[in-house]
């Protein structure tokens, strides 16, 4: 055999060994994530699916019920439809408001002014605080009949409003808490705004375009991928909202803030009907899958990528 061939074979063996070692190293790095995924995501997912076909409660062995839980949910649980309607309303109010506000603030923070870094940090702070219990309690105090908001309205001679005690305003008030946490959407919009080529604005200015024209004809189309991403993420988050409804109003007044997450919690942790609650969670999952698929399908009509891709 020629020396060149021997070197090639030896090289191949070394290369294969090296590739195998790299693959092994990659797999080893993946193991912690894999264990976490299996234990904390896949196992609970499969268990929850299994429990949804049983009468599993806190204690005692579950009995198989077939589709009875799902049948009851759709045919005889009036609160299921109420919670679904309230949740859809909550999503319709909070998501567009949040995205609009996030975009508005992102555009302000895209300006080149002194101290813009500090402003960006300040506007992101509400998102760091999050929708925690402490913030929800604070929201309750702010919007109570004797709270700071009504006191401020009083300075303008406006009579106090029962923001959280009236079925008319309660849902809107807790939606504002979600809107207030616009930081993560704002960051994504800001990144998108930074990528819009300046030449487009210059060319539009030269052609005599107004600010509104530049926004609707250049800015908005160019950031539709970010808009699409934020829409999907915020919609999923909004459907899963629980803390504000639980802490601030506990679903009241008159079930006007009875979100789906709260219904699920009640069934599982107050009534101990874990099997029923599991069925509810899978129905929510199916709704979210359907809505996300719809959003993806529609995106081809209104999302534009610079390279023409999807």
């Amino acid at each position, binding site marked *: 055999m020629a020396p060149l061939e021997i070197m090639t074979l030896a090289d191949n063996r070394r290369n294969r060994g090296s590739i195998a070692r790299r693959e092994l190293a990659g797999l080893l790095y993946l193991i912690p994530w894999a264990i976490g995924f299996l234990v904390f995501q896949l196992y609970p997912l499969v268990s929850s699916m299994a429990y949804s076909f049983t009468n599993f409660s*806190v204690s*005692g062995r579950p009995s198989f019920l077939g589709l009875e839980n799902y049948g009851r949910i759709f045919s005889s649980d009036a609160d299921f439809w109420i919670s679904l309607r309230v949740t859809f309303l909550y999503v319709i109010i909070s998501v567009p408001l949040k995205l609009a506000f996030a975009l508005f603030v992102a555009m302000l923070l895209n300006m080149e002014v002194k101290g813009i870094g500090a402003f960006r940090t300040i506007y992101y702070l509400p998102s760091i605080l999050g929708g925690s219990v402490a913030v929800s309690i604070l929201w309750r105090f702010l919007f109570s009949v004797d709270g700071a908001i009504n006191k401020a309205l009083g300075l303008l001679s406006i009579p106090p409003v029962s923001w959280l005690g009236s079925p008319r305003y309660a849902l809107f008030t807790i939606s504002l808490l979600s809107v207030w946490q616009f930081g993560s959407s704002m960051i994504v919009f800001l990144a998108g705004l930074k990528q819009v080529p300046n030449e487009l604005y210059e060319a539009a200015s030269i052609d005599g375009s107004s600010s509104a024209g530049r926004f609707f004809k250049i800015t908005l189309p160019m950031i539709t991928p970010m808009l699409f991403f934020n829409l999907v993420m915020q919609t999923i988050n909004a459907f899963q909202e629980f803390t504000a409804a639980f802490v601030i109003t506990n679903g009241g007044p008159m079930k006007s803030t009875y979100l789906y997450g709260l219904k699920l919690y009640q069934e599982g*942790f107050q*009534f101990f009907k874990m099997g029923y609650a599991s069925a509810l969670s899978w129905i929510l999952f199916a709704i979210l899958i359907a809505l996300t698929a719809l959003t993806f399908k529609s995106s081809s009509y209104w999302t534009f990528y610079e390279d023409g891709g999807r």
Partner: protein
Amino acid sequence: MTDKRKAFVAIAALVATVGTAQVSAAPKPKLDLKPATLRFSWWGGDSRHQATLAAIDAFMKRYPQIKIEGEYSGYEGYEAKLTTQIASVTCPDIMQVTAARVKEIQAQSKAPVFVDFSAYPKLIDLSGFDKSFLGQWGTLNKQVIGLPTGLNSYNFVFNKKLCDAAGISISKQWTYEDLVVEGSKVNKAFPGEYFFSMSTDQTAHLLHNYMRQYAGDQLAKDDYTIGVSKDIIAKAFAYYRRLLDEKVLEPLERSSLYEDASKNPKWIAGKQGMALAWASTVGLLKNDNVQLVAATFPIEPKAKGTGTVINPTQSFTVYAKSKNIEAAVAFLDFLYNDEEAVRILNTQRSVPPVEKARKILADNRLLDPLVQGMVDMSLKKSDVPLTVKIENPEVRKVYFDIIEQVGYGKLKPDAAADQLTVRLSALLSDLKKSEAAK
């Protein structure tokens, strides 16, 4: 006289004769306990947390080989946490549990959830508990699985300062008509103010008390039937509307956010004349703007019963799967029977249920007179305990839903009575089927 009724007469006699019993103040000989670390969970306010932690410290000083870690919080979310812990077999060694739920939790499980205290006579002295009371609230299938933490009553608590200012007479036993007539004086004297406010939970209590007095029975009975007629339910809801329409009760738009008066700015400012309160938490109502005077709930002229509620404040239990059962049982014996612990805990969980403890507090004038007064007056007029079914979370949810709709004017009393009867019947029937299937 029913067995349950006898239980409360017995307790009344015990509480009334607390001064005659001879009690030894000598400390119990130290037990030979193995080293252990115990987890102890309870709910309450800050004062209860501090007292309980101090009692834990006192026990740990006496038994340095035992470490007790407190897991305490407010009530909100506690039941859900407990549910999760039972399901995941991660319960603390010692748990404070809602008294009405102890037997229900055990009954739902084939395996023991709670320890039988009567199996540890050398570690815990149960002789100070009233046998009937313990049997009613803590015994299942002859096993003592829950120990009442206190005698608790639900009362009216007047703010005498405001009542005097509005010309309200609080010296006599009120009827429900008196509540309307006297209560409406506040809004007439101070426009924009109301005599009292109630959360939905408190409204449920008041209206149930009203119904019991007319029906002589309870809304949801333990045999899965409804014990109150539609007419009486409608009458109760009509009374509720009267309280709102005649401006005795603060409108729900203003008061619905506050679980009780202690969080309502109107009460804190001394602008309300009455609050509903449990004896164990009446301390939360105290502030410089109010002067508290307790009374029982109103009693109607031809009432078939008083509806007056005396419950255990909560129950203490020990987890059956605890690895330190003996240490846990010994700790509870310390809390109930040791003079040092009794003095520390005082009435943080209302009047102690053990005779010896009541004597210690009475002899040393440590019993809060307001708390003792509330329990004493309720004991004299006590009715049979609330059924387990009326405390069932699903039953409460249906009841609360209807109350809210009446309170916000969305349902008329007659329609509300119809709805409540239909929904409650269906729910009780479902509960019967599902509990039979277990």
